[in-house]
């Protein structure tokens, strides 16, 4: 699904990722944990192709394609979903309009027929219900006036609608209360637990992993993966802290 080989990336000419390698197979859920400043969000943005995140070395193969050669919107169409730590507000553009444009842009890129208005609304209703989100909220401008938790829930609704092959979720658990955490966790499982799909969870804490059980846990520190293990590694980190474990 995704193979990252010796990835180096800089932000404002400062090296952040320094030789990161990681392989994710279809059907697997990986969690990347690490202290502040380790490069976790940079990894997400670099995979998404955000301007300003410059790759200075290494390679990323995504489902047989050179991911780094694709524009950000082409990466999305290829099946990569980037869940934002801080979802952006877009005044004046309704969620429904935005998502329908996005879903159909992706379909067009893949040579598929666009969804009709009715088909899209049916899909949106289904995914909103899955995340226990009021459909009325999706008629509002993108993320405007949403609480932190609502924004994260809306990210998952988007993921459900766009139906990616790989979801890279950057601190999707931050800003969530306990109930919302469970809803979001169950949403990730419902949408992404499939033999042909994979998830890369970027997180600080073990708590999301109680709901979304990872197959592999990696510790990112100083721009590289310094340790990998099974789900028990997350518990060890929670118990002993990053310094002791990494």
């Amino acid at each position, binding site marked *: 699904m995704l193979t990252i080989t010796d990835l180096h990336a800089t932000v404002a000419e400062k090296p952040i990722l320094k030789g990161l390698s990681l392989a994710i197979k279809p059907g697997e859920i990986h969690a990347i944990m690490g202290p502040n400043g380790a490069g976790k969000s940079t990894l997400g943005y670099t995979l998404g192709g955000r301007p300003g995140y410059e790759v200075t070395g290494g390679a990323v193969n995504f489902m047989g394609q050179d991911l780094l050669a694709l*524009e950000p919107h082409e990466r999305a169409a290829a099946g990569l979903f980037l869940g*934002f730590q801080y979802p952006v507000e877009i005044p004046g553009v309704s969620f429904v309009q935005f998502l329908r444009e996005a879903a159909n842009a992706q379909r067009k890129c893949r040579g598929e027929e666009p969804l009709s208005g009715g088909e899209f609304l049916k899909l949106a209703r289904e995914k909103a219900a899955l995340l226990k989100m009021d459909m009325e909220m999706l008629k509002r401008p993108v993320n405007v006036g949403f609480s932190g938790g609502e924004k994260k829930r809306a990210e998952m609704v988007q993921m459900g609608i766009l139906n990616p092959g790989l979801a890279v979720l950057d601190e999707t658990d931050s800003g969530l209360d306990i109930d919302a955490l469970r809803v979001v966790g169950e949403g990730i499982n419902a949408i992404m637990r499939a033999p042909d799909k994979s998830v890369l969870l970027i997180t600080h804490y073990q708590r999301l992993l109680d709901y979304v059980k990872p197959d592999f846990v990696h510790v990112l520190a100083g721009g590289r993966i310094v340790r990998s293990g099974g789900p028990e590694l997350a518990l060890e980190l929670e118990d002993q802290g990053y310094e002791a474990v990494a």
Partner: protein
Amino acid sequence: MTQLARRLVEDWRYADQAALATLWPLPAPERVVVAPGEHFTRALVHEGEGVVQLELELGEGATADVRVLSIGAGYGRVEVSATLAARADFTLGAVQLCGGTAAREVVASVTHAGRDAASHQVVRSIAAGRSSASVLGRIVVQPGADGTDAEQAIRALLLDRGAVVNARPELEIHADDVKCAHGCAVGELDEGALFYMAARGLDPAVARALMVQAFIAEAFVGSELEEQLMAAALAALGGLA
């Protein structure tokens, strides 16, 4: 009550004088008196060059809704002035789309002459290429016009490095019990929002268009002709840059 002397000493230089020479003499402004309690509505699409002036006088409790769309090449100026008697309500929503070397201007002047009148001005400018968009938005609250509720929101988007936006809000308030809110901002399309849209699969041109569309829509919200004005604006947008 003592009336304080007031004098405006600023100068508003809006365009190249030589470019204006051919425009004189100006046609007489259109004057509209809206009788007490009556409603007036006008959608003014100004294409191409020249100066268009609309002067409104709103009687007690009268309402007026004026929408402006200024597009095209060359020098174009739309002036709208409104004088509001007690409890009158005035709305102005204006959009100017400038590309190439166009110089477009919206000059709005609202005078609150009576008590408890309300005015709402929303002006959106988009400047691409080497064009310039200027906005002068004036609110005058005359002595005794207490209970005034005036708001003015001027925003402009610069799509290219060579484009220029001038925006000047001007508030002159001579009464105490008033609410006058104004905001003025000039900026570029938000890079963060553009990346967010790209990360969901929208190509850059579509993402840009969607954001620009949302930006101008605010000036037409609530108009009876909202759809037609948006359609005309979107058609003109296609020719920008």
